[in-house]
């Protein structure tokens, strides 16, 4: 069943959000990050067209708990695996 109650995290939760490389579709990640912000998370938004390296570097420097990436341009299998390996 769809939840409408907002989950309020106990700890300070930080996220890096981005759209993957060569991808300019960022409507979805903008919506998701706004809900994340409204639910109490600190969001470091990197925008569109971000490479796996840039996202991972940001994630490490910003010491986030989660990375949220929107991928509409295809190639997500490789992209997500590559990010995972870089971390």
């Amino acid at each position, binding site marked *: 069943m*769809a*939840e*409408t*109650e*907002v*989950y*309020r*995290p*106990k*700890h*300070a*939760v*930080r*996220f890096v959000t981005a759209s993957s490389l060569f991808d300019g579709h960022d409507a979805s990640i903008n*919506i*998701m*990050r706004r*809900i*994340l*912000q*409204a*639910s*109490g*998370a*600190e*969001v*470091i*938004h*990197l*925008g569109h067209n971000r490479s796996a390296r*840039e996202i991972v*570097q*940001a994630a*490490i*420097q*910003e*010491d*986030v*708990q*989660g990375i*949220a990436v929107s991928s509409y341009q295809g190639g*997500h*299998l490789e992209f*997500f*695996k590559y990010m*995972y390996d870089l971390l």
Partner: protein
Amino acid sequence: MKELHDYGIARIFSPEDGRKLGLQGMINMMLRECDHPTVTEADFAKEAGRLSEGRISSVARLISYAENHLNHQEALAALESAIPAVKKAPVVGITGTGGAGKSSLTDELIRRFLHDHPESKIAVLSVDPTKQKTGGALLGDRIRMNAIFHPNVFMRSLATRASRSELSLAIHDAIRIVKAAGFDLILIETSGIGQGDAEITNVSDVAMYVMTSEFGAPSQLEKLI
């Protein structure tokens, strides 16, 4: 999707998930999964020990530690004793109203500084306001920066959280941490009007006020930091 989940990716959301969970449901799931501290008291000693090596992940985690333990006097005291006040790295503060061009200016400064001094290491601490109602924040300075992808640059975005000023309460600790990690230049960026209680002047050696060319009374400029 299964392939990615098996590989270790926490979750790939499909349109089906969207229909079943709803938007807030998906966000809630993400938040639940991430609702844990990145560094605990147990890790603290280890990370503090790695600081002199200049390990970026240690710098990042120690700053988080400082942010999360602002109310714990013992933890703060331990942080202070573990991190010696070293190096005389200059701290430059950059403030100004939203959209004035602070991040763009910071970015350009970094690029040029590295061009002239390619061996130097630069740390950027960027502060953005927390929305008091939700507790969330959009730390939107990083998106503006292009020069920070250089291996000698470390950038960290901070939210103001409970502080009633334009800076995070952890900023002093954060500055100590990056100084101890061996950075040669520290830039602090935050939004502010530069008048009255500009806290940025307390933490920086040199403060800069960035503004657009349109303004009303020239006498306002006299009040600036």
